[in-house]
């Protein structure tokens, strides 16, 4: 009985909110609807409604996938100091990072799904019931590591929430090994995704061993940048307090990652331009255009400018610890990395093509709508996760339990807000 009641409580928690909450849901719902309509059209007519063709056979969807794998991987940035070094300020908010990882991996899977020509046959890729080409295909590896990462993070996050909802402290003995496992696994998902491209000798632009390190470095910029923005929103709209100390610590991490990211990019550019082999054509297309095709050029220069600007903002402690410049820096990084690691990575892999053809790919409205729809779904998913996770975390929401311990004191410890807020009693008794 109590199980049902608890589920009902969570459901109620998801449905009830203020008018801004409903407006936000409506806003996301609108774009999800548009995305769905666009996707149904794509399902019906085939991928011909996209701008992808044989010459550029991956586009916006796979670009987003690549970016999001980075976001998912970056969750460890929070997990490591939080649980292993017991850095208190971050430990309080690590669960938000895990939720982001879960959301990002879900979006990755969605972006792969919408890119498939035969989505109903996706079970062919599964082990045992399908015919997974493991260990030969890096895409098979990606299926394994991404789903594994999803399960690991989901377990950690659900376990912590369950224990808290039951009014108990979570046991490090149970999730400790999982947390330790999640760290190399996070590096793993991004390395495998980099290898997915890196392993293709047919595409010289990707066939550079610097790709995996670059992926990790840029992930440790973009992932935490999203989190910094989310933390500021969450501490505004909920009772979770994220200490400035934690935010600045993460910003510092971003500064280091950004240094490495730009250095690695520079190393790659040096190699291409100084040696000047025919493989340079791809980078040339990206930054200067090739034979009159210049569609990516302005984007790439903007990405470069934004990345360098963000690096400068994050390097200087004064701009790093000023919320205006900090947020500007986060947005610069997000846009910069999104371009560089999205379209700026996928498209030049195909241009010039294996037979030298240049096709200026630019996504169609269908692709853009589906992409926005998936992002909106991600935002909705994360919102809903927060909606029931935060009250559990702060102690406002508790499962009905026979030996329900007094939870208020523990919540008080957590809550740093000065004024006394009585926790809502959402369960009836």
């Amino acid at each position, binding site marked *: 009985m109590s199980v049902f009641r608890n589920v009902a409580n969570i459901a109620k928690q998801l449905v009830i909110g203020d008018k801004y909450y409903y407006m936000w849901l409506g806003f996301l719902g609108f774009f999800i609807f548009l995305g769905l309509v666009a996707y149904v059209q794509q399902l019906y*007519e*085939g*991928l*011909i409604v*996209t701008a*992808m*063709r*044989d*010459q550029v*056979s*991956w586009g916006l969807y796979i670009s987003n996938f690549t970016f999001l794998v980075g976001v998912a991987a970056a969750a460890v940035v929070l997990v490591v100091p939080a649980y292993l070094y017991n850095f208190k300020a971050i430990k309080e908010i690590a669960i938000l990072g895990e939720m982001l990882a879960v959301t990002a991996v879900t979006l990755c899977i969605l972006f*792969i799904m919408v*890119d*498939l*020509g*035969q*989505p*109903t*046959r*996706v079970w*062919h*890729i599964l*082990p*045992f*019931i*399908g*015919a*997974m*080409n*493991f*260990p*030969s*295909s*890096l*895409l*098979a590896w990606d*299926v*394994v590591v991404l789903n594994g990462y999803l399960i690991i993070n989901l377990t950690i996050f659900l376990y912590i929430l369950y224990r808290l909802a039951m009014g108990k402290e979570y046991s490090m003995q149970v999730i400790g090994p999982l947390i330790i496992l999640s760290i190399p696994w996070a590096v793993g998902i991004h390395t495998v995704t980099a290898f*997915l*491209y890196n392993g*293709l*000798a*047919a*595409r010289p632009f990707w066939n550079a061993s610097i790709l995996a390190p670059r992926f990790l470095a840029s992930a440790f910029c973009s992932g935490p940048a999203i989190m910094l923005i989310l933390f500021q929103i969450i501490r505004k709209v909920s009772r979770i307090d994220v200490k400035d100390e934690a935010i600045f610590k993460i910003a510092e991490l971003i500064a280091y990652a950004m240094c490495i990211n730009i250095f690695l990019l520079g190393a790659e550019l040096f190699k291409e331009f100084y040696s000047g082999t*025919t493989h340079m*054509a791809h980078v040339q297309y990206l930054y200067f255009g*090739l*034979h009159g095709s210049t569609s990516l050029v302005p984007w790439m220069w903007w990405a470069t400018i934004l990345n360098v600007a963000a690096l400068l903002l994050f390097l200087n402690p004064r701009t790093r610890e000023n919320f205006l410049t900090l947020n500007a820096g986060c947005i610069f990084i997000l846009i910069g990395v999104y371009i560089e690691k999205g379209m700026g990575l996928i498209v030049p*892999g*195909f241009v*010039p*093509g*294996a*037979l*030298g*053809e*240049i096709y200026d790919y630019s996504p169609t409205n269908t692709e853009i709508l589906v992409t926005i729809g998936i992002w909106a779904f991600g935002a909705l998913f994360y919102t809903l996760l927060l909606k029931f996770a935060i009250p559990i975390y702060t102690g406002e929401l508790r499962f009905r339990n026979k030996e329900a311990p007094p939870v208020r004191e523990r919540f008080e410890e957590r809550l740093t807000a000065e004024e006394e807020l009585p926790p809502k009693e959402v369960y009836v008794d």
Partner: protein
Amino acid sequence: MSRKIRHNAMGIKLDRRNFLKGTALGLTASALPTKQADAGFLDAFFQEHFREMSKEEIEEVLTRLEKEYTEKYKKNVSVQATPHMPGVVFGYGLDLSRCIGCRRCVYACVGENNQSRDPQIHWISVLRFKKGEKWSDLEQSDKYYNPAVVPEPGYFYMPVQCQQCKNPPCVRACPTQATWKDPDGIVVVDYNWCIGCRYCMAACPYGARRFNWGAPKVPNEEFNPNTHYLGNRPRYKGVVEKCTFCVQRSRAGKYPACVEICPVGARKFGNLLDPNSEIRYSIENKRVFRLKEELNTHPKFYYFFAT
């Protein structure tokens, strides 16, 4: 984690899939009206990997497909699954000193292999190069040349199609083993198993793989009814296809369509294991090269210069 699919003689069966099939069939059967079309759809959905099926199961599938295609194209369509011949590894030769870039091969291939007319799919790309320019800058080549007559002075031509690599990167890349290399060296695709992820297209260094971006269309009167399951049978929307050295012809002892159409006789085909074959003569007596040899894909497509 996974198993390597062996040739169907091994008869590996996994109970779990049959279980899944049974349950799902049961569920859907109760929900769906049991029309003939639905049954066909479900059969196709639960069809196993080609190399896992027994002889009888393959027969069943071929019969089902023949019926389906015969209805669709109003022609008596045969779908074969002729296996490789023992002692045969196919090789292909292309004499660049002869090719005049007339594109007869491109369209003979389209007709023989039932390639979609709209959206257009061509398995063969003919590249035009300026004489005296370097080849490594492939982006200097032109696929869309359209003069009044060929050959044009100052240019030479190089047709490219699937090179049937001995070490095919596309096969390694495929996450579902939907594409593989048969013992006669032909890299084939099971159009009923491909999920359309296009990783193989990214992996192919020769731009040889084509994707069905939309539903393929072939006019009934132009449809070639002599088909092979792994070759020129109709494809589905959202799957990858490629040159198979006309598997429906070559495994029946015939030359591929591109060889037979070539007006200058630039295209050579035969058994690499037969020392008296045309292809062996070319390799042994001419100066052959293979495209992008540095990638170690070991193509079985040899370019050469007869003069």
